[in-house]
Each structure stands twice: as C-alpha cells, then as structure tokens.
C-alpha cells in the first residue's frame, strides 16, 4: 500500500530572511524506511519533536520530502505536483490531532464533510441531494446523526468534532488513513470511544492506518506493527506482540517501562535522564547516546544501522551487533 524508502525532510533552522541565511538544518525526518501493507495498522510511536507528525504528512505528500522515495499503491508519488498530487487524496486521507482547529469555524459540519466530495467532483456539480445523502450516511457511520449536518463546529464537543474529522477523511473511501494523534486532545472516555470507532471502521472498510501517537499503550491497542521513532530516526520496528514481549532498543525499553500502568512504580522503572537532543545538526553517532544507560564509545562515534532480528522485528542499536556491551 505504502512504501517509504530512505525518507528525509530537512528544514532550514530559522526562517529564511531577506539578508540572513542560517546554514544549519533541522533534521525532522532522517532516512526513514518502512512499509504499510493494505489493510494493515502501523503505529508510529515517539515523543514530541521526534518527527512522527512530519513523517505522516510526508507519507501522503502534504509536505515535500528533501530526499527519499514514497510509493503509494504502486505509484511513485515522491515528486508529484498539481493535479496529479491532488489525485492521491482519493487514496490517502488524514485525521488531525486538534478537533478544534481542523474544522473551518464558519462551515457547517455537513459542508465540511461534503468538502472532499465537492472539490474532487465525486458527484455531479448539481447533485446536491446525492451529496447530502452521502453526508448523512457518513455522519451515521461515525456515530453522529443527520441533524448534526447543520451544526457549526463550536456547537459540538471535542469527541463529536473528531468524529466529523473522521467522516470527512473517509468520505472519499480512501485506502490509507494517516491518523495524526487523533485522540490526544480528547478526554478519556471520548478517547476510548474514538479508538473503538477506528477499530470498527478499519474492520469494515479494510483501510490501512498509519497511526501516529505519543502513547505506547494506544499504539499497542490499535496496531499490528509498531515503529518507534527517536529524534528523526526509526530506532525499532516490529510486530505489536514482539515489541511488547521483547523490546530490544534501550529507548523502547524505557518507553515501555514508563508506560506500564497497573504494575508501574516510579522506583522500579528505567528512568531516562535529560531531554531528547536538538534536531538541529545532531552530533554524530547514535542519537540516543546522550540519554542511553548503556552508551559507550562506539555510540558517540558511529550511527547504528537497523539490524534485522526475527520475523520483521528490527532495532538500531550497537548492543545488537556486539559492538557494545550492556552495562549494569
């Protein structure tokens, strides 16, 4: 469905001024490769600033990559432009994090959901009734009802707005849905309901999801496969269970340790000191070496490559190649 090869996105460190030019680059996404199969749910987990949202937007070409290649449904979309680029919106859609900002405050819910149908001319120009029927159908599909079509976004709760965002995204029957922290802004009970809605939609429509989240337990709940990102790089990938049972990268291990709910105790977990490194011109070596409890000389010198473990499980750490020994 989606194949991403060595994808990289660099930004200038500061906005381009008329006279100033900062040569430093923010490496938001740095050489990331992965694949999402048809109907598969792949979660991207990482902390703020790790580049996961950028990755999601690159994958469906809402952003232009600096280098690398993206194939969607077999066609190379890396450098599509104009009309051809707009065409992929029928295959890949996105649901945003912010249920308040992602709906036009002056458009009714119905108009927002109908928008992708109209701009892509999926119905005849004059066929308002057919569009309205489709909007009603979509509203019901996401657990709202036809009466909501006439409401404005500010009249709805956060959970309801997010459902509108979902209805808009599935309006064109996409094959791939990028979900960018879709429940992070919701209250716990709304969060659970929206997660269940995603599961249900996925089962019924057979869409593939690229589910971006900072919450490992949400990823474990939703995904078939999980990609763990740190400072613009993938550090570990693997099936949900493989990752849960045997996380291999020290960062993944710390994430799991921090996210254990029922058994968690501050005194027992692996605590990482410090903060993630600045993505501006990172130092050579492993990006995690500043916080890693096992870091050694090799980690500051060389960047670890992704080493394949069993069954699609892989991690990028010198511990796994024998170049470094586990401390403590």
């Amino acid at each position, binding site marked *: 469905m989606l194949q991403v090869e060595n994808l990289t996105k660099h930004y200038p460190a500061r906005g381009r001024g008329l006279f100033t030019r900062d040569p430093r680059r923010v490496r938001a996404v740095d050489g990331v490769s992965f694949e999402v199969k048809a109907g598969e749910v792949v979660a991207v987990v990482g902390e703020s600033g790790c580049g996961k949202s950028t990755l999601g937007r690159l994958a469906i070409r*809402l952003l232009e990559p600096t280098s690398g290649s993206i194939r969607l449904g077999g066609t190379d979309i890396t450098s599509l432009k104009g009309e051809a680029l*707009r065409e992929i919106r029928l295959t890949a859609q996105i649901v945003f994090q912010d249920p308040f900002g992602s709906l036009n405050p002056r458009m009714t819910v119905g108009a927002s959901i109908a928008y992708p149908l109209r701009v892509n001319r999926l119905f005849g120009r004059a066929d308002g009734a057919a569009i309205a029927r489709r909007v009603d159908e979509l509203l019901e599909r996401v657990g709202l009802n036809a*009466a909501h079509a006439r409401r404005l976004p500010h009249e709805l709760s956060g959970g*309801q707005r997010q459902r509108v965002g979902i209805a808009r995204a599935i309006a064109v029957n996409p094959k791939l849905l990028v979900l960018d922290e879709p429940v992070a802004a919701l209250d716990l009970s709304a969060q659970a309901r929206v997660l269940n809605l995603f599961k249900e939609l996925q089962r019924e429509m057979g869409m593939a999801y690229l589910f971006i989240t900072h919450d490992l337990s949400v990823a474990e709940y939703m995904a078939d496969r999980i990609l763990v990102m740190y400072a613009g790089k993938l550090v570990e990938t693997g099936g949900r269970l493989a990752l849960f049972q045997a996380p291999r990268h020290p960062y993944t291990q710390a994430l799991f340790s921090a996210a254990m709910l029922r058994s968690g105790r501050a005194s027992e977990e692996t605590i990482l000191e410090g903060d993630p490194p600045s993505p501006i011109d990172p130092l050579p070596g492993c990006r995690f070496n500043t916080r890693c409890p096992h870091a050694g000389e090799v980690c500051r010198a060389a960047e670890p490559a992704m080493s394949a473990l069993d069954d699609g499980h892989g991690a990028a750490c010198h511990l796994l190649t024998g170049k470094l020994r586990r401390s403590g």
Partner: protein
Amino acid sequence: MAVTPEIAPVERPVWRPWALMTRHKSIAAGSAIVLLVVLMALLAPVLSPYDPNEVHPLDRLKPIGSPGYLLGADQQGRDMLTRLMWGARSSLAIAVLPLSISAIIGLALGAIAGYLGRLSETLIMRGMDVVFGLPPILLAIAVSATLGPGLVNLMLSLTIVLIPPMTRVTYQVVVGLKEQAFVEAARAAGASSFQIIFSQILPNSLAPTIAYAASLAGAMVVFGAGISFIGLGIQPPDPDWGRMINDGREVLDLKPHVSTLPGLAIFVLAAGFNFLGDGVRDLLDPRMRQ
C-alpha cells in the same frame, strides 16, 4: 458492536438584532447617528428648504434661528441647514466608497500574497511598502494635480492610500489562517489553492478586514473633509463640510456658526462611525463572543 451515538443537546444561537443592540451599546449609538446622517443625505432634495447653491445676497451671515434660516446663512446668504444636508452626501461617499473598494482589493491581494507566498508575496507586499511610504496628503495632492480636483478624484486617491493597510491586515490574517489545521485539512481533501482561497481563506479573513475597515470610516470622514478644506476635494460651489469650514474661516471671529456647524457635523459623523466601528470589531472578534 454498535457505535455509541454522541448526541448532546446544543442550543443554537438565535439572531436577535435587538438583543445585539442592547448588549452592544456602541453599535446602537453608532448606527443611530450614521442612519440619521444617511437619511439627511438621502432626503436632502425633499427636506431642504432651499437649493444648496441658491444665493440670497440680502440674507448674508444671518445668525442661527433667523426666520427662514433655522441654522443661519453663510456669507453668500446660502442656507446653512440646506448645505449641511447636501454636504452629508459627499462626506458619506468619502467615508464608505474608498473603504469598500480598497477592502475588496486588499482582500484579494492579501489573500494571494498570504496564501500563495513566494513571488506573489514579494511582489505584492514590497509594492505595498512603497505605496505605504507615501504620505497620504502628498498622494492626494499628486492625484489632484495630475487628474484635477473633485469628488471622484478625491475618492480615487483615498482608495489608493487605503489599499496598502487593507492588504496588510488581510495578509496578516491569512498568514495566520494558513497555519490552521483546517486549511491543511482542505489541502488534504484535495482542494486546489484557488479553491482553498475561496472556501477557507476568504470567509475567515472577511470579518477582521471588515472590522478594520469599519474602524477607519471615522478617520476617512475627517481626512476627506481636510482635503476639501485645503481645496483639493469638492469644488465650490458644491456643498461639502470641509469646504464649508474653509468658507467660514474669514468670518470665524464674528460669525462663528458658519465654520462651527460643519465642524460639528464632521465630529458627530466621525464619532458615529467610530462607535459603529468599535462595535463591529467587538462583535466580529471571536474572543468577545460568549
């Protein structure tokens, strides 16, 4: 498993102009004043006792309250009330027309520069900087020097003066909007830049631009009167408040009403527009709602 319906009762705000008026006193006061002046201007041919340019040499400088001249007469014996009523027309035109036209142009230019960015942004915004650098009064003088004085040319120069600030305000709003998730959502939906400008950007930048325009109307009344006062606007004998102040200048010490009355009219209309502008700004500012 069935989807849990999320249906919460929601009150819809009802459009109640009267409640709006009582809550926003400045809108009420402003619209009352402006409406009064508009009626005066529209009904001038019906209500005014004389022709505005009708000269009565025997009744020169009649004071306020003289029989036949409710507000007195000027030094040519023209009825002050009549001239004030007719003069409202040019003041209103100057306040409203250049603003409306420049707002439309500013919206278009600002939306293009703000949303498309790149070359269009550089060309439009740097061009605006150049025009913005010209003192408005100099520009007005330049326009009337080349095209000649008169109401139309005055409005033309005001429009030129107003386009840069209007464009800038819209531009700022659009640059902010462009970062909003719903604009990105429209892009993700497959909309072209043109479609996004029309369906997402313009509807959301309309309110702040209108609010800004409304806040300038009062200043335009004063500015237009000033241009006519120095003789570059409305030409005699046509009635205009700024012109009338100038007419009364020579007799200011003896017969102050000739200058003071149009001055007062300018003040009242400008204040009315300012009240209205403040009210509209508050009303359209989403932070002021609820």
